[in-house]
């Protein structure tokens, strides 16, 4: 399971990095979204990958059967913040499209 997770994170990061280096704003925003998914999974992964484990500590419970709740809390915060900033970026992207008339990140087309 670790391997699948690691490969998935790697593919998403690679695609994301490639996309944010592209000249169109839409590609950049998709790239940033992919990167943020990859990062969220990465945060989730640093707590150790476990399935069917509860994050709640109780009396007489073996700690090794538990999952670490902190990365889960972190990932929630990261998702919320990432979502909000991506939405903000989308608005700016539309404003730039409206003002400059092009979706190139430099606000003008490259001379051919």
């Amino acid at each position, binding site marked *: 399971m670790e391997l699948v997770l690691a490969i998935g994170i790697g593919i998403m990061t690679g695609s994301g990095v490639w996309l944010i280096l592209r000249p169109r704003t839409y590609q950049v925003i998709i790239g940033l979204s992919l*990167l943020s998914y990859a*990062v969220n999974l990465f945060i989730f992964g*640093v707590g150790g990958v476990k399935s069917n484990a509860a994050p709640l500590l109780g009396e007489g419970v073996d700690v090794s059967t538990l999952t670490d709740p902190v990365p889960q809390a972190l990932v929630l915060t990261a998702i919320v913040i990432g979502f*909000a900033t991506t939405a903000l970026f989308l608005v700016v992207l539309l404003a*730039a499209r409206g003002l400059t008339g092009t979706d190139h990140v430099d606000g003008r087309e490259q001379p051919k």
Partner: protein
Amino acid sequence: MSGWQQHLIIAPIVIPLIAGALLLFFDERQRVVKAMISVVSTLALAAVAINLFRLANGGGGAGAFDGVYLLGNWPAPFGIVLVVDRLSALMLVLAAILAIPALVYALARWHAAGAHFHSLFQFLLMGLNGAFLTGDLFNLFVFFEVMLAASYGLLMHGSGPMRVKAGLQYIAVNLAAALCFLIGVSAIYGSAGTLNMADLALRIGEIEGERRMLLEAGAAILGVVFLIKAGMWPLNFWLPGAYSAAVAPVAGIFAIMSKVGIYVILRLSLLVFGQGESAGLGLNVLLYGGMATIAFGTIGVLASQALGRLASYSVLVSSGTLLAVLGLSNGEVTAGALFYMVSSTLTIGAFFMLIELVERGQDAGASVLAVTMEAYGDADEEEQEVEIGVTMPGTIAVLGTCFAACGILLSGLPPLSGFVAKFAMLTGMIGMGASADQPVPASVWWIVGLLILSGLAALISMTRAGIRTFWASMEGTVPRVLVMEMAPVMLLIALTLTLTIKAGPAMHYMEETVRNLQQPRTYIDAVINARRAGVAEASGPDGGGGI
């Protein structure tokens, strides 16, 4: 635990939060009410910051104030802590002192150029103060995002294709940086099992092997994020475009935003990576990267035709100087660097606001045209004698004086604080050999040379711009400037003058700050042993359980 003083620690976050939220309830047409709320909040913030500064500096009786605030009354490594020490108090005061003139300046004109200026301004202050106060890495991320989200709005305040384009690139860079921040933080959590800075400093000694590698990699990724914010070459190409596109008061307050990165680097490198096996992690990157940044900024300053870009490159020179000097990791030099940070932040803040006033009398393309004409030497010489006898208007005199003061400050000439700051750093650097009885390393001579050269470049560039603007004004129109816009600039310059006169006590404070930073034990103990409200005895120092 004397009640209200302890609660002051959270006030720099809560005041702008409440004010910013309150401002949202008022319609844009109720401008006076909004302005009043914003001014009151910023003044309150300054009062709190100065009070905290006094407390952190040992005022208010020993032991009464430990500078640690446990949020939600959770004990230290589990809950989030806010910490005030000398460094964070200094940064709080600097932010508040820069915010007042920027706000007053904005009230004259710019706050009406778009919606929600005051709310965004307050949220920016909240993010800044939070980043200075927090003692937890993930909380730092949250406050960074608060600050950045507000800065996206502020950068595009006033709208227009230029600002939106600059904003687009600024947001893209910062979103990518935020993702790196998360990777760094989670790698640190994965290897150390804690995000509390003090707890991390305690545990770093026990981490070994692969986990230490992961930790160092995480810290390095985190460092890259702060270097992007601080504007280290080659991570700084976004900065000149963004800062010169922002409206004047916003650019003024942005002068401190690039210092947030430097603050965090200083804090973490001395607290967590001060001693032990990972000591001095990345110092060489700071040293050589800083030197490259000074060189890049200097070339930029010389090459800039528009004043806005000149100021932006000055930000880079200032950041580069700080990074290179911090990379030396020498107490005396670092104290000088802190002084330089205060001085250059105030200067650049004043300069950004001054530029807009100066350029108001000119055509947009005039300054670029002037440089081109200078280069080709075909300015028509015949018209010269026409205007003899016209006295210099008062506005130009005041603007010119402020411009000259900024030039002196940026280039580090006596008598203003820019000189004192550079002198303090240079003395420390040249003195490095004397104390250790070894020859001064070559890299130090390089920094000394670059510092002096960058000052010369600033002087050349400012003189050229000054002559072009004030002596050979192509338009001949006097800019219409309100007292309300001139006063903030003069206030900031007056502050640097005060800093010069009070250089002795100020340097003393900086040295004390650095001494505190070099003994992370005090900080760690204060955080770990922080007493919970309503609990009689202190919790043990080994409160951090395994995870």
